[in-house]
């Protein structure tokens, strides 16, 4: 899973792009339409992550009979 690239979120991209031009406040000034789209995408993403986390809690264990664990006899 470490090879999976990070999700490209509009909010992160806006922050990254605005970093070059931002002056003053920590967060950039962006048109309201962009803000609304980026917020919606971010909410959907975090909700999807939460839903996935919820599913993982109920994941049934998988038996792997061929896997050797050398430490086991110890």
């Amino acid at each position, binding site marked *: 899973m470490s090879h999976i690239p990070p999700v490209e979120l509009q*909010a*992160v991209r806006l922050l990254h792009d605005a970093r070059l031009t931002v002056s003053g406040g920590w967060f950039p000034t962006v048109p309201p339409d962009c803000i609304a789209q980026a917020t919606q995408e971010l909410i959907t993403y975090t909700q999807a992550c939460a839903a996935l986390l919820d599913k993982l809690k109920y994941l049934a264990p998988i038996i792997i009979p061929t896997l050797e664990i050398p430490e086991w006899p110890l």
Partner: protein
Amino acid sequence: MAALADLQNSPLLLSALMDSDPRLALANAIAWLDPATLTKGAADPRYIEFDYDAEDHLAVGLHVCRECFPTVYAGAIQLQWQGAGERAIERFILEGMGAYLVVPPQDLEELRYGPSVDFCGLYLHTLEPEDADNPPLDQLLPVFGLFGLSAGGDEPDEVQSTAFMTAKVLVQSLTTRREPVYGDLANLLTWLFSFSGNTAIDYTEEAFWENGYDSAEWTLHDVALIDDINREAHEHVTSAFRAMNALESDPDLHRAFRRNIKTVTNAIHKYQQQKGTDNARPHSQRGYPDAATFTRYARWPERPYSAFHVRAAH
């Protein structure tokens, strides 16, 4: 001098550092656009579900917008970052939600109880004749009167049940009529006798809560459902008022309506006598035949279609 320049550039360097790490970049984005997700459930550290009673009304407003109106939420969060006052943010949320809902909330405090249902149920015993804010009553009471009912609803159960059965028969007899005025008349009857099937039309707010029903929740599904219920209720009541106006302005229609009520009521009484209704048993246990048994007693005159309906038919 170089140290001062470093200090001035430190926010830029820090944000560049955060950008280079996906987790920090995500945290930065969430702090910017969705900070409510970091603080939600602050009142309960074992947070499982949002507790509408434990949070202050602005937190409730932001949570509701985050769940159902993300555009409004985005605007409210940016207002917070710009340092707007609580009242300005509240006003922004209320106006923003108002653009989406059939029945907009008047106050953020209302949001704790779920999406608002515009209850317009009519119960005779709760109608106050002296209520100056209740102008339709003057129009409604004469219609109730045709069924033998009066203000206060003090009539015996038997009279009320027969009136209800008569209304059901009339509505069933009207289902075959295509003239718009008869659709309006059916809507008037289902409103007066609370059997439309629409919660907002069939219940007063008090009756709804007394029945122990659960309120709707702030989910996209429930918001859409409540909007449909409210929209249908408003159309239903508008249609019912059209029927009342038609009854007042169309003597033939009024005559037929009155005659049908009388004929059907008599038919129901006759049926009960023939079946030997047992008066010793409670009225609610006696049972009534199906409304279809009596629909043949109701006869309606031909009524004109409106210009719109004539055009649609062609």
